[in-house]
């Protein structure tokens, strides 16, 4: 069990955003979290990534309580994330963006006088990830000049540069055109295999993507787990189809 949440509750004043959510992610799994707006997905992500502490319950990553530990400590422990709204460094090039992640992973961020350009390890690791994500020929473009799909890939690629054990993707294909969604996912899954990622968790609205890639799907509704099962069982679950997927479920 690499990531485990027990009986998570999160209250904002009187409002209960999460009401007793338990889940577990094992090595080798690709888990999708789905649910309608307001189901508590964003809150759940914030708890799983240690951005917010739970009001009750526990989140354990590799056996360690990570409630509210914050993004920097989380990255050091080996969990990375990407964001729903694409997060890039507009003025930095693709390569610089990836280098920043490598520098941080190697703990060289406080190195004031070393030459970044002469750091072979940082250079080669960053380039390797750029190749893996098909961004090598844009290595020297500033991130702001990339097309939307590549920005999304860069966001994920920089998270991969941390060589995490687990990655949490918040809507990895949002803002990407329907035609490109599968391409983005293929690159992502391929890179995950190359890097030796132990597990992927994604929050996703696009049911095509969810059903095509998940080993397991967790459906949230009104702050509770509605269902937690393999894709086939989820598809057959009338409650999930009604509340989350909608009638026009993919077949």
């Amino acid at each position, binding site marked *: 069990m690499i990531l485990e949440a027990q009986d998570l509750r999160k209250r904002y004043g009187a409002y209960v955003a999460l009401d007793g959510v338990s889940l577990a992610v094992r090595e080798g799994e690709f888990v999708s979290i789905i649910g309608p707006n307001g189901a508590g997905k964003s809150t759940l992500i914030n708890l799983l990534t240690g951005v917010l502490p739970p009001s009750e319950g526990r989140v354990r990553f590799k056996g360690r309580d990570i409630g509210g530990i*914050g*993004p*920097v400590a989380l*990255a*050091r422990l080996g969990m*990375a*994330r990407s*964001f729903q709204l694409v*997060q*890039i*460094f*507009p*003025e*930095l090039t693709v390569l*610089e*963006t990836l*280098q*920043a*992640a490598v*520098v*941080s*992973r190697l703990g*060289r*961020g*406080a*190195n*004031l*006088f*070393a*030459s*970044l*350009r002469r*750091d072979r390890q*940082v250079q080669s690791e960053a380039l390797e990830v750029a190749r893996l994500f098909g961004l090598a020929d844009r290595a020297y473009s500033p991130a702001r000049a990339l097309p939307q799909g590549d920005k999304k890939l860069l*966001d994920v690629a*920089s*998270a991969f*540069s*941390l060589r995490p054990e687990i990655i949490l993707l918040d809507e990895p294909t949002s803002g990407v055109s329907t035609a490109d969604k599968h391409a983005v996912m293929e690159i992502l899954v391929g890179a995950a295999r190359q890097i030796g990622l132990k597990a992927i968790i994604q929050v996703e609205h696009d049911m095509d993507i969810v059903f095509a890639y998940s080993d397991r799907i967790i459906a949230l509704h009104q702050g509770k787990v509605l269902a937690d099962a393999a894709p086939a069982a989820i598809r057959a679950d009338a409650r999930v189809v009604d509340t989350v997927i909608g009638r026009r479920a993919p077949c």
Partner: protein
Amino acid sequence: MRTPLVLAVVVIAILVLPLVSPPYYVTLMLPFMAYGVILLGLNLLFGYTGLVSFGHALFIGIGAYTGAVLTTRLGVRHMELILPAAALAAAIVAAPVGALCVRYVKIYFGMLTLAFGMVFYTFLLKFYRLTGGDEGMRMLRPYLLGSEWAGFNKTAYLIGPYYYFSLAVLALATLLMWRIVASPFGLCLKTIRDNPLKAESLGVSVPRSRWYAFMISAVYAAVGGALLAPPTGNVDPTLAYWTHSGNVVFMVLLGGFSSFFGPLLGAFAFIFLQDTVMSVFPYWRLIFGAILAFIVIFAPGGLMGLFARRRGPVEVSRG
């Protein structure tokens, strides 16, 4: 790149200037070199980390007063001791002040730095016995390289040994800053400037990096401040006043904060522009206000941005 060529020409021009130019213009170069050091540091905070300090005069003041106190009260006349002492004094003050300020960003950071600057200004003004109040203190002519340069009158000293000493300090400060911005740390600062949320998710410790940048820029300001004092021979509280903080921010904007050498160009342009405008028109601030408005609206990349644009499509826009 034509940068190395341009740089070589500029360095040679600065080296030969005292031999060919009237002394007046040579003495004008002294504040340029002092402000050059200050602005290199300020731009690490501004251009590279994305934090605008409106209280940087605090550290300029600390540097200048360190020199005055050392030469007049403690009998320490060696510039090689004054500069490290100024740097140390600034670091001691910047450590707690910076630790507090870097928790805030944007206007809150600016206002907080402004507040600390004004606290120090008031201290200089009111603690008359220690600081000389509004009259300030004398800064005795410092020894350079162990020598008093006794055979030189004031002007000869300033346009000779002191000129080259200042230039050496500026050159060293530039090389050091060049290394810092090209280091892994420099890259981390740029990620923070562009997107702190994303930087944190990549494991960059944002407050710690900002704090380091703050301290480095404070040390640069103090060293520059200590260089400012000998040409005037006097230090007074206006060095730490908020309009002085505003001036250095203006210089950075004038030269262009998105370029490494922009601030140096800004310092140069400011000093010589101020001199020219003041000699023909008493209300020079009026002209400078108009220039500032023009830069912000039409040339956010500053003078460096204008040159770069003419050479090629280098964008300088930043959100």
